[in-house]
């Protein structure tokens, strides 16, 4: 796989010229998805065709008659983005092979297909189509931007919502306080399809993220990238603390950074540093306290929820270390 090292200055110059996503989209101020989109485009090795599942990104970037996209872009529905990606890639392959557009200066057929879905479109309603595409080995880069709830419809819980979090369908009630289940282990599910490449990324660690995205583009087959994405609206964080929270998620091992190449788990960047030096692992409370969705957990009578969250993080961390052979 690639040994390409992204250089921030080169990336900036590339964006000056191509601007895959324009300003003027209507994602919330401080939305993490806006950063992920840019980083995906920065990592591209070829022109890209971009498929997006229904969700915040789709809605906010294409409010008719406006579009923020300077790359070819299509949205069909919520649960089928991966299937659409498969269709585009099949067409591309066939048309490329047939040389039908050879010599036509107006058509480009040497491109990569990237599919972007939110947690709802990936963990829940879109899981079947992704599984189908991965089983078939269709060459798409699927990026999950995980802001841990259905934000587009106004913050409802998804299979990606963490334990304890307040959403409008897991309210902090008198009896039940927030979500009572844990997050679905989505990367493991994707890795179980024996895809060549899967990884977790955080935009805060841009170098790590862009290298992994590039590997995803270069994979000989389907690739899955799980991108952690702060949502100021749904998480109740300061818009300016988007990157800070993403960093804390990694530093507390709530969202560890790793990649899985042909089934081999490998920790990367700051997560690898924590594995080598466990003292660096911060308590989850530092991450929780910056977000209104977890505020109730910090009250004395709900302290057990923080402990339970921490236990889950520790257990998952131990599992991950084992998978990575550490």
């Amino acid at each position, binding site marked *: 796989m690639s040994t390409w090292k992204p250089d921030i200055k080169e990336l900036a110059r590339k964006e000056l010229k191509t601007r895959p996503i324009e300003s003027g989209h*209507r*994602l919330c101020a401080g939305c993490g998805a806006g950063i992920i989109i840019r980083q995906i485009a920065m990592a591209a090795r070829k022109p890209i065709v971009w498929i997006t599942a229904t969700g915040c990104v789709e*809605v906010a970037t294409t409010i008719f008659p406006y579009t923020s996209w300077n790359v070819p872009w299509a949205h069909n529905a919520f649960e089928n983005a991966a299937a659409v990606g498969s269709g585009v890639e099949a067409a591309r392959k066939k048309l490329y092979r047939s040389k039908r557009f050879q010599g036509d200066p107006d058509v480009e057929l040497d491109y990569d297909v990237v599919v972007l879905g939110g947690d709802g479109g990936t963990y829940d309603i879109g899981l079947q189509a992704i599984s189908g595409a991965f089983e078939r080995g269709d060459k798409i880069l699927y990026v999950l931007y995980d802001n841990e709830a259905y934000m587009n*419809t106004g913050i409802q819980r998804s299979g990606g919502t963490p334990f304890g979090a307040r959403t409008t369908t897991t309210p902090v009630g008198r009896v039940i306080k927030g979500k009572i289940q844990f997050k679905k282990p989505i990367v493991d599910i994707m890795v179980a399809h024996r895809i060549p490449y899967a990884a977790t990324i955080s935009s805060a660690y841009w170098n790590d993220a862009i290298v992994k995205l590039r590997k995803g583009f270069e994979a000989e087959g389907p690739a899955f990238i799980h991108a952690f994405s702060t949502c*100021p609206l749904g998480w109740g964080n300061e818009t300016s603390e988007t990157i800070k929270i993403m960093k804390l998620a990694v530093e507390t091992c709530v969202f560890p950074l790793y990649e899985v190449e042909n089934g081999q788990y490998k920790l990367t960047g700051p997560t690898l540093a924590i594995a080598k030096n466990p003292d660096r692992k911060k308590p989850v409370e530092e991450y929780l306290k910056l977000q209104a969705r977890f505020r109730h957990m910090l009250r004395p009578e709900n302290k057990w929820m923080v402990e339970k969250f921490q236990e889950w993080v520790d257990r998952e961390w131990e599992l991950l270390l084992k998978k990575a052979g550490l």
Partner: protein
Amino acid sequence: MKWGDVPLIEIRWHGRGGQGVWSGSAVLAYAAIKAGKYAQSFPQFGPERLGGPVTAFNRIDDEPIVERGPIYEPDIVIVIDPSLVKPRYVSSLIEGLKPGGKLLVNSEGDPSSIRSQLSIPDEFEVWSVDATTIALEEIGRASPNTTMLGLLLAATNLLPIEYLEEGIRWRWSGDVAQKNINALKRAMKEASVDRAKEVIRA
């Protein structure tokens, strides 16, 4: 304008997502209902986004309300986002505003200079208050909806303030509610007006 003479009061709010346009109109409707009137509050639905333009509506009447749908000819327009107080937006802000109607804006500027800058016709009353600064100082967030309710009370004798306080306590709790009430009261004091000129109608 004396409210008793007008059977149905229609209010249109203009703002942006995250500033609490819908919440502001909901608090007003709640207060009106508590005060024994009939009322409606509803938003114009777009995607929920912090910062996107949002419109909300209120109808308040002594009789049950049968009207539905957006308000095309409001008695009062409340503009809670100062960035909308610009010449390019004026036509949509005052669109359909009834002669003698009130334009309530969140702005640092005083009403007469707003009128001249935006070329607002003489037949409308212009009220202003620096609601964003008040909200930042009193509440700690740039959500000037309750502050603008203070301007509304200054501009009209629509409802006794107690009902609005009750509405604010219904929507927010404890300390946050009190801060919003403080902002509302401060806006009532700091409000200023440029009255409508006498308009002779044919």
